[in-house]
């Protein structure tokens, strides 16, 4: 069984984001880029399914500018068998990303597509669901546990009410949540090994994807800040302060 993993490069989660003064975007010059943390979890799960003997092949794919090769090498070093780099300088919107991934699915015929539930840059939380719809296949979003038995995956999902379990027939799209697993650390020998693993580059324009980038980003603004409040010295002062605000 083959597993396709969506593997996006984003601004590292530890970076304090700054909006450019002209509102055209966020400052990315000199800023650390990392794999989307949720996609790392997706890849880790794919690798574990391979180690269990459920899957044989793990393919990581990204849609990114030409300089994202090192990013994919990172996924290969973690353990993926192959990588596919769809090259475009444009930041595609989720519908376009889903249509692009569908093209890769048609070629690769994976049984499971694993994606992070959201990317921590645009926080859209859409691509997996859209992909499943376009593919006409099941979706299991926000997964915290995945069990594969034959052609069925039993997925536990983190939902607002608690934990929901559903069964989906394969092939299917599964998007992963934080507590599914803890991604492994990459060891130096794996980085060396990754250099010789196959990395295919595909120009975005060669796929014939109809653009779904319908939305125009007008501007970015910094959020309004909450001002720093007062420090009270003990519990009686705290209670008095809450009473003064009419909260108790």
């Amino acid at each position, binding site marked *: 069984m083959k597993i396709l993993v969506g593997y996006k490069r984003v601004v590292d989660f530890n970076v304090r984001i700054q909006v450019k003064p002209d509102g055209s975007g966020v400052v990315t010059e000199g800023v650390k880029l990392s794999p989307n943390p949720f996609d790392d979890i997706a890849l880790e799960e794919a690798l574990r399914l391979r180690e269990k003997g459920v899957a044989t092949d793990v393919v990581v794919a990204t849609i990114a500018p030409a300089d994202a090769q090192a990013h994919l090498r990172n996924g290969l070093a973690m353990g993926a068998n192959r990588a596919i780099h769809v090259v475009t300088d444009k930041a595609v919107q989720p519908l376009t990303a889903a249509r692009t991934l569908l093209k890769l699915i048609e070629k690769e015929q994976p049984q499971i597509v694993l994606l992070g539930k959201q990317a*921590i840059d645009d926080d859209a939380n859409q691509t997996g669901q859209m992909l499943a719809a376009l593919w006409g296949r099941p979706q299991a979003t926000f997964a915290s546990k995945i069990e594969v038995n034959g052609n069925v995956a039993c997925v536990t999902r983190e939902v607002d009410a*608690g934990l929901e379990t559903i069964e989906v027939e394969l092939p299917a799209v599964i998007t992963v949540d934080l507590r599914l697993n803890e991604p492994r650390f990459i060891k130096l020998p794996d980085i060396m090994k990754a250099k010789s693993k196959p990395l295919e580059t595909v120009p975005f324009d060669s796929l014939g994807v109809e653009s779904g980038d319908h939305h*125009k980003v007008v501007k970015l603004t910094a959020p309004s800040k909450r001002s*720093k*409040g007062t420090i009270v010295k003990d519990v009686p002062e705290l209670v008095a302060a809450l009473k003064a605000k009419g909260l108790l």
Partner: protein
Amino acid sequence: MAKVLIVAEHAHGKLNPSTAKCVSCAKQMAAGAIDIVVLADAPDAIAAEAAKLDGVSRVRTIANPANAHALAAALAPQIAALAGEYTHVLGPSTTFGKDVMPRIAALLGEGQVSDVMKAHDAHTFDRPIYAGNAIQTVETPKERKVVATVRTASYPAAGAGAATAPVEAASVSAALPGHTRFVELKEGRSDRPDLQSAARVVSGGRAFGSAENFQQLYRLADKLGAAVGASRAAVDAGYAPNELQVGQTGKIVAPELYIAIGISGAIQHLTGIKDAGTIVAINKDGEAPIFEIADIGLVGDWTKVLPELEQAL
């Protein structure tokens, strides 16, 4: 004029307050008509609740045993089939809406605007990105259908209207897939206020050190009539169940009073609470980032402060 269809969220035969918040968002767009669609096995009681909301033009029901559980693969084609006559399809940015709305959008060949926090008009929206550290203003083409999720913490729930909207059964022809099956739902305790709509929330973090210690937070919550929340660190460590997580990837809350105890305040947590009326932070580290946004801060160890606070209330 915008003609809006809102996908109702519900459970146990009751309408979720997130639906009334979507109505407020539709009103902000100055929508000409606001319809709500209820998909359920038995939608009547839920539809009756929805019909009372102020500003609602019509409630449409799709009764089907396949709609007993909110499976996106089953719901989306039915909603997409109904969407033709509407300019906008809205759902809440809860796990329900996050799951089903993009599937609807893709079936319609549309993009989606996630987490609308403000509608400037029917085609211009503000939404948070980068864990709320930037606000993106997006414009959608006038000739295209808008599919969007509504950031519920940004909107008040629409109240009861003077009149009751008509309820009609809708018939849609959509092929429902059999490839997705509901197995079970393990719900958290339901005898407490709901985290996403509670007026007061007390949250605990990693400092609690164990699930047993975390239980002490419930006593304070009970005294205050508050819902209980948790930081990601506390959930990851197993002190609290996942449905309590507040933050970028958990729940976004907007209570009148939010009390954070033993939470240092990672950016990802702060984004989930910045719409709270008053934030109280209790942490033994006076340098913790939570104090940067807290209205009232108390530097102290929870083991000492929590019992004192319980006593004082």
